[in-house]
């Protein structure tokens, strides 16, 4: 059954063998998107992932927001966000928040780089399969874009209480969120596994 996909939403068999670069296929019965063959997918994913990782490091290194009222000022950094929850007796929530906004997205980016470097150079690597399995599962648990909305809502909530200033890290995180979303969007599951399979066959 080469070139056929069973729709993940409704199980209909769809022949995608005729699909050309730049075209997308969706299920004729339920409309679920099946695959999209992109040009230079790996180079794009690689470029976005590396840039996103750099932005994430920036987002962790500088003040994120600062809050000043009546001559007093408090500064918040990104790693402090979960740390303060931990310090206030909610370690579980702290771990979840840290995972959703920093560690899961960071791991996804590293996995994407490990995946796209060999795929781009068409070289077989023994980690391709385990990394390919993990990257999509982990990706569904990253909440980068949700956190951005959380920051905006927080700003509005406290704007009237005091002066809030956005730090360098805030902009770093916004860039990171955009690049992360673009990296994920450029990767196609079906295409990726076809290529991993082809590389494995070549090797053996």
């Amino acid at each position: 059954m080469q070139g056929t996909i069973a729709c993940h939403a409704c199980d209909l068999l769809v022949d995608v063998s005729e699909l050309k670069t730049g075209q997308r296929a969706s299920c004729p019965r339920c409309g679920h998107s099946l695959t999209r063959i992109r040009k230079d997918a790996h180079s794009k994913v690689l470029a976005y992932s590396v840039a996103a990782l750099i932005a994430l490091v920036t987002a962790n290194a500088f003040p994120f927001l600062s809050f000043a009222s009546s001559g007093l000022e408090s500064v918040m950094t990104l790693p402090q966000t979960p740390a303060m929850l931990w310090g206030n007796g909610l370690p579980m929530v702290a771990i979840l928040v840290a995972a959703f906004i920093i560690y899961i997205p960071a791991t996804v980016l590293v996995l994407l780089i490990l995946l796209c470097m060999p795929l781009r150079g068409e070289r077989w690597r023994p980690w391709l399969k385990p990394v390919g399995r993990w990257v999509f599962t982990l990706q569904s648990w990253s909440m980068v874009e949700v956190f951005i909305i959380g920051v905006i809502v927080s700003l509005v909530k406290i704007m009237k209480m005091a002066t809030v200033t956005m730090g360098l890290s805030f902009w770093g995180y916004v860039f990171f969120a955009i690049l992360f979303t673009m990296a994920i969007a450029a990767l196609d599951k079906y295409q990726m596994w076809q290529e991993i399979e082809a590389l494995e066959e070549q090797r053996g």
Partner: protein
Amino acid sequence: MAEVEGSTAKSEGLASCHTCLKLVPEDTHTCPRCGSAVHQRETDSLQRCVALLITACILYIPANVLPIMYTDQLGKTEASTIIGGVVLLIKLGSIPIAAIIFIASVMVPSGKLIAMFYLVWSVKSHSQLSPQQRTVMYQVTEFIGKWSMVDVFVVAILVALVHLGGLLVIRPGFAALAFAGVVIVTMIAAEIFDSRLIWDQLEDNNDNSAT
């Protein structure tokens, strides 16, 4: 992109690997391509989904009753619940933000629970909605799941940002944990629900009418 005679993987005796989309014979246990476990349909999808939904409903009670946040201002402590936060925002005149929080923290989690219960029920009974409509309903539910975390993130940010000695300090409440629990448990429930079961009904009906 031609349809293969309108047949499904199941009706052809095939199973699709959840991880890599490879089609394998239905009696395969491990995908030959990526090494993941293969199931033609998610095992005990409906039972596991209902169990998680009930868990989420139970967690939903402390999430709404207990305070999600405490504000210590000049020696006075004020506790606020999720709904209390929305009411406060309306009073402050921030209607759009009140709407975001209300949608993300009240409408999305409760709507999602109702939608998932309905979908599970619809697989076992006759639904007014077409499989197409229910698939869209499922996909919307799955997509919006993580957006409910907004309120937990807001608490995390405010706690990290607002600590001005004796003047103004914000502390998190236990509802943040319960609410994060609701979001995560419903996300897992949505992942476990197998939307292909909605369409299997269609084939079963066709089989019945053919015989």
